[in-house]
């Protein structure tokens, strides 16, 4: 497969770009693979990529019911950060963030990782203490964050209103190397790299059953026929419960709609990502100029990819309070994604009651930012049976009461 470069573009321009190859192939499934990953979203594709890259396992199929990257990978607010409080979270999110730094070069696909900085505003004394605690924890976790003053907040984000009246900004937790990336490109870049290693990405292939023999996985039934495998990874976000049921176990997971919206594009006015948890909203500006705004999640099970409008109202209200000028922008588009929420709102990367079936789910609102770290750790878990990055995120933690609760510091995790 030809490499992407400025030179290649110039070469292709001369022949009206007729020479570009497919970014990934669309093969028919084989009868057997060493590993099948169900779900060609960011997490599934990243898992496949690191299975190949780190463990030399390339006889891999990634099965996708729709089109690759068509789930939450393409429906989020593209934020990348690792300023988490608890050690296991900070480890996996920081691994992901660090991988994002070089991922464009690694995949030879420009993901437009933009470490423009992520700021979490503190607007109550309680939040101040919470974020100072996070800053201390991060320092020991190797995550570079700092506590900054309201004046520094204002310097970094001139359009912000730090004077209230209801919730004056008291400071912020600042992660300079947090930021955003082009979400679709993450899926596409991994897909292209997997395809280059000879892996099969099979789109429009829905899994209809999971076959087990003697307590072990034997293969899957799909709309493109049965396929055997030695190991199976379930990486399907909002639909994890349905697949777990096929495999014969239950998950501590519920699927709810999480909403987001964008404004019409305007000229650059905000370089950093700002999260305001007291008033419940977060916002960044895309390279296109749209203000990308994250909203709330419904509290009830929902598979419709539509949310309730009152959440949009609450979010917009909160952000106008924080950024008064956006009152005169217009909402261009709103949408919902289905996220899976676990009992402690932290993900599950774990072995399952069925031997050789592994599950990666429950990312809730934090899925996109973790993709490379999740793929890295989950590939290690699938290849070797253990991964330090995944250990704390096992399914049995709920039975033991060993939760990983991130709401402790931030109130909500995005």
């Amino acid at each position, binding site marked *: 497969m030809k490499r992407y*470069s*400025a030179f290649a*573009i110039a070469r292709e321009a001369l022949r*009206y*770009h*007729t020479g*570009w190859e*497919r970014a990934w192939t669309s093969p028919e499934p084989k009868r057997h693979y060493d590993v099948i990953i169900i779900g060609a979203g960011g997490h599934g594709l990243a898992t496949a990529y690191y299975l190949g890259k780190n463990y030399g396992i390339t006889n891999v199929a990634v099965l996708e019911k729709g*089109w690759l*990257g068509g789930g939450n990978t393409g429906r989020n607010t593209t934020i990348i950060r690792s300023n988490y409080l608890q*050690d296991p979270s900070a*480890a996996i999110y920081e*691994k992901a963030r660090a991988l994002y730094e070089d991922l*464009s*070069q690694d995949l030879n*696909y*420009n993901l*437009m990782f933009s470490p423009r900085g992520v700021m979490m505003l503190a607007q*109550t004394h*309680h939040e*101040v*203490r919470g974020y100072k*605690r996070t800053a*201390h*924890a991060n320092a*020991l*976790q190797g995550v570079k964050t*700092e*506590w900054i003053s309201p004046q520094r907040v204002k310097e970094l984000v001139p*359009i912000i209103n730090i004077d209230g*009246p209801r919730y004056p900004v008291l400071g912020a937790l600042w992660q300079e190397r947090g930021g955003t990336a082009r979400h679709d*490109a993450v899926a*596409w870049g991994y897909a292209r790299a997997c395809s280059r290693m000879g892996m099969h990405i099979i789109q429009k292939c829905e899994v209809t059953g999971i076959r087990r023999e003697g307590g072990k996985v034997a293969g899957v039934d799909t709309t493109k026929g049965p396929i055997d495998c030695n190991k199976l990874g379930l990486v399907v976000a909002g639909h994890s419960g349905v697949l777990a049921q096929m495999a014969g176990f239950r998950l501590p997971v519920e699927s709810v709609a999480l909403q987001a919206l964008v404004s*019409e*594009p*305007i*000229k*650059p006015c905000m370089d950093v990502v700002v999260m305001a948890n007291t008033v419940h909203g977060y916002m960044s500006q895309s*390279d*296109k100029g749209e203000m990308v705004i994250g909203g709330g999640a419904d509290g009830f099970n929902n598979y*419709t990819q*539509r949310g309730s*409008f009152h959440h*949009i*109202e609450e979010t917009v*209200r909160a952000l*106008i*309070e924080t950024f008064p000028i956006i*009152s*005169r*922008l*217009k*909402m261009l*588009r*709103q949408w919902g994604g289905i996220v899976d929420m676990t009992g402690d709102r932290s993900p599950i990367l774990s072995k399952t009651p069925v031997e050789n079936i592994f599950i990666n789910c429950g990312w809730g609102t934090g899925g996109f930012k973790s993709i490379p770290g999740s793929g890295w750790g989950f590939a290690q878990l699938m290849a070797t049976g253990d991964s*330090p990055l995944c*250990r704390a995120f096992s399914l049995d933690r709920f039975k*033991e*009461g*060993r939760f990983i609760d991130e709401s402790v510091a931030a109130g909500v995790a995005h």
Partner: protein
Amino acid sequence: MSARIATQGRLIDRSKPITFTFNGKRLHGLQGDTLASALLANDQMLVGRSYKYHRPRGILASGAEEPNALMGLGEGGKFEPNQRATTTELYDGLTARSQNHWPSLEFDVGQVNAALSRFFPAGFYYKTFMWPKSFWEKVYEPVIRQAAGLGAVPKERDADTYEYFYAFTDILVIGGGVAGLQAAKAAAQTGAKVLVLEQTPHWGGRAPVDGGTVDGEPVEAFVERTVAELSAMENVTLRTRAMGAGVYDHGYALGYERLTDHAPLLAGPRHRLWRIRAKRIITATGAIERTLSFAGNDIPGVMLASAMRDYVVNYGVAPGQRVVIATNNDDAYRTAIALKQAGIEVLRVLDARNSGGGDLMRQAHEMGIRIDCGRAIARVKGAKRVTGVSVCAHDGEGGALEEVACDAVAMSGGWSPVVHLWSHCGGKLIWDETQAHFRPDPNRPPTGADGEGFVVPAGAANGELMLDAVLSDADAAGKLAAKAIGFKPKRGKVPQGAGPEEAPMMPVWLMPARATTALRNKAFLDYQNDVKVSDVQLAAQEGYESVEHTKRYTTLGMATDQGKIANINGLAILADSLNAPIPQVGTTTFRPPYTPISMGAIAGEARGEIFQPLRRTPMHDWHDENGADWEPVGHWRRPYAYVRPGESVHDAVMREVKNTREKLGLLDASTLGKLIVKGRDAGKFLDMLYTNMMSTLKPGKCRYGLMCSENGFLIDDGVVARIDEDTFLCHTTTGGADRIHAHMEEWLQCEWWDWQVYVANVTEQFAQIAVVGPNARKLLEKLGGMDVSKDALPFMEWRDGQLAGFDVRVYRISFSGELSYEIAVPACRGRAFWDLLLKEGAEFGVMPYGTEALHIMRAEKGFIMIGDETDGTVIPQDLGLHWAISKKKDDYLGKRAQQRSHMTDPNRWKLVGLETLDGSVLPDGAYAVAEGVNENGQRNVQGRVTSTYFSPTLGRGIAMGLVLHGPDRMGEVLEFPGTDGKAFKAKIVSPVFYDKDGEKQNV
């Protein structure tokens, strides 16, 4: 050139001139103009620049689908970017600025991108800007970012106001064209309550321009008559300038009414967001004309045929003097005829169909218009405006047969129903081969709470494009919707529309059909985002085969028009590239809103001081007038400290602590939750809710209690007072009142519903004031009325009585370690009692204190604070609160959870006091480090600070924290690294720093 003409102009008032400015230039228009028609009347063909290549852009459309003519409107606090000129009504003094160019609209440096466009195909940025690595962040992205964006940034706070409006209706009709009006009438005649929203200021939609007759009279007369009839009906509400913005689940719909955009001097809110619940929704949203994809179809002067007709007929504006028309259907002949009638020269109608059209073509022909069938535009010539076209055979590669000089081009690629609102909530579409468009699939409507379809499409929005069919379809839609919700449609006569016979259209997705690569490279699909036919073909070639992939890879349909112009043409090109039928490729998802709506309207009135409800205690105003440094706690605000002139906040806190410890302090404790739990089983119920045994508490006594979630974690604490045999009063934290009330109700209603218990939240019924300090009793004795002596009212008891004539309930409880009375009075007496305490307490040195002094004093005493010592992961056992966990009870909420292996782990961190060796204050949230790193390379830790303060009483820093095996390690020194490189050393001590034996409170 484009100019005003002497005839036509049904919407303008030639007697009312209007002055406005465009890019600083003073221009003149007429009352009734849109900004777009006024610009055209001033020969302003160039109105903006495209997003990626900065190509010159002119006005393409006449309505909501306009992708090009976006303006910055207004000034200062009324400035708004990205306003569509085509839907902006002109008013006197309007100021408009074009967007996305530098230094000027006429000369834009960014246009260099257009010259290099060959190097910037779809998705080029995914393939480059990666080397050297640091350049992405330092060079490429900043440059791209600076070039990106569209409208200018508003600089000032919004000067306008907004409001919500709630509407409940049987039937909501979206669209006030002939279909919407007829559907509304048919529905309203059954007696159903009907609301009609029309996004423009005018009723009738396109019909008055398109012509035809209804029951023998001109369609315009039908519109007028129907509007008059509907206006006279009591069950009908009509609103113009109100757009149906979105359709949501269970019949929820959003309306977006623009009240003053057309007249900014009008008083009142600018926009109104209608939050509508309708039993049925009729979408009579019409159809949008498609562009034709030929080279140069984006040059200013190339316009949708229907839009050109609108400008002539509605506004008396000729977008050009010599016009070439390209079409694949009969409707464009209406434009040819209208132009000719207005005295505009129509040079050619190039009809891609070999056999041409029907009645309308014949009529045009008879008027002397030259019609070339089987012909197409190979390319349009010109840069900032059209100068001519090359004509070619449609069924070819674009070899020019003839060059025609002209100054405007009208194009018609057929019509697509506006299916957005049908689709928002899950309505599905079918592909109509004859019309080459998607229309609503009647068998798969969006479904409501009852599982039945709740949206009914009508007229052109349902794929009916002929006037007669529009009216009968709309009539049927109105009746169907009414009938579905129990109204009885009358068997009325359906109005008969009549118009010319039309020949079938012919799908044309690329013009000419086999256009060369060079031509495809200039044939635009998405005008704003500069997506061309070649881009979509490239996406398909590279494997971005799903319509969502193509959209995201090329940005097709992602501009501010959200694909209204581009989508169908784009996906047809994609289908062709993939050799797949169009319906198999499908559409992207339609998401609300239909056109962008202001954030201001979405937020409504809630901003500034009324952003959220503010809960105020009866003493709130006093605090405000006396230097309160406010701290938000839920929707309450509590004084953090009362700052006196010349004092810092810190000074004030120190003063308040000292004064309370030495003399007398007052705390407004009214925000603390007060829940009355009453009934035969109240004791049994509280035994389940608290870890303590509450049923054994004697009336007249108080007990400190802990509440856990079923998952074992500590969620609230507070003092419980037993009022009588079956009545308790439970105090909660300030933030906890509503939450704990709900928690109690949940268990009572869902688990122990046979227990006889009633819970009432009386938090706001009482003001509560803590009178604290060595002089507390002296003050109460001075007030007189009840015995507050140690014997009459011992510690942890309460009494009802009177103080200085106020009815009071006095609790002898202490969160400070001082002699302390918490006194509840009816809320309406709170302020008077507070004032009295201050007045009478003056001689004892009374001073109010705020939440920070409260926190310091409780920390000096080693009392925990929910939210500080607890964070949702802490169980009472971690905090050394075993004494508050009853061993006698079989069960309480959280008990089973606390038996899980991780909860009984001896390695859980436990509460201790921490004392820095040098007396300094430990930083908030600092961690105590241990040796080495963990499996992920993170520094090992063995504890953390939960609360830390400077204690004015002890003159040093004190802290509490959770530490591994802490209570067994008294005297050990731990190291707490700060975030600034400084490390703190602190000794593990008892968490009780002050008055360890409680001598001060038990007096």
